[in-house]
């Protein structure tokens, strides 16, 4: 799962949102790293709806234009959770080993050659 996709799904965890709200929420959740352009967002939504991860839940008219809100489906929530677990495991692998590396590195530096 690519990072923008991950943050699009994560932005829907607290309930359905419409296009621009997803962009804002994804930017907020990622600390400003994921700045989705409109074209990118709708390409992602097309794919996610086709995969059954996201569904259209509300349609309203705002300023004479249609506004659609999208929500996370149970399979979408499962996929998001699986990805989060995978990333947490991958992170643990490195963070655990990094501490050991730094420790042995500093030990080597102080020991006589």
């Amino acid at each position, binding site marked *: 799962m690519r990072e923008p996709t991950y943050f699009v799904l994560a932005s829907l965890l607290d309930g359905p949102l419409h*296009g621009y709200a997803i*962009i804002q929420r994804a930017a907020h959740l990622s600390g400003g790293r994921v700045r989705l*352009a*409109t074209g990118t*967002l709708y390409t992602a939504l097309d794919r996610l*709806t086709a995969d059954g991860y996201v569904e259209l*839940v*509300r*349609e309203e008219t705002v*300023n004479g234009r249609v506004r659609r809100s999208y929500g996370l489906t149970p399979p979408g929530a499962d996929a998001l959770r699986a990805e989060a677990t995978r990333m947490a495991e991958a992170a643990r692998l490195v963070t655990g080993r990094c501490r050991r590396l730094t420790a042995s590195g500093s030990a080597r530096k102080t020991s006589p050659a």
Partner: protein
Amino acid sequence: MTRLERRCRWLLRAYPGWYRRERAGEMLDTLLEASPPGRNWPSFREARALAIGSLRARGWAFFLSILWAGTGAAGAGYIFLLSTHLPAIPTYSRIPCWAGEPGVIIDAGYLGAAAWLALTIPVLVTGLIRFNGLGTPAAAWGGAWIAGLALMVPVARWQTSAPAVQACNNQGCSLAGYSHAVVSWGELPVCAAWLALEAVMMLILARTTPARCVPQRTVTST
């Protein structure tokens, strides 16, 4: 309608009709919300994302056809340029050149010709995949493809038997006093016909909804 809205609408026209009918309204809404107040133009990022998104929506067949038509049109432009120049002396390379032609243009010509040839079969394959099960448009499109290739056969033959090559063969590459252009005028109508065929092919493709389009929507709560 504000200036920004008009320009966003114009950018959204890059998407195929079947997609716009479904999505253009909410995409316009999002674009306008995402643009900071006081802007008259959508940002470069937004425009680029729309261009890429529209190519994705149109699919591989359209993307490859655009490239194919583009390199073909560049080739037609090159042939037109050649018709106004004298041939290169004394060697004749595998693509026709004019006397004193910059090496950059010759290299670009080789590259374009190679790209056009390499794209020919992928364009046919992706196109036929797109038209899966559609009778008349598929037949019209395939016919235009064959006609376009058939048009290129005489051009290729004229080029190998061009006056410049003949003169080169007969006179041991001495073209002193030679006063004919590299290409004959017969090649220009062929190029025009090819471009027209390409335009027809793109139109047929643009009007076809790909098998994998915007999914069926069901509003679960209103």
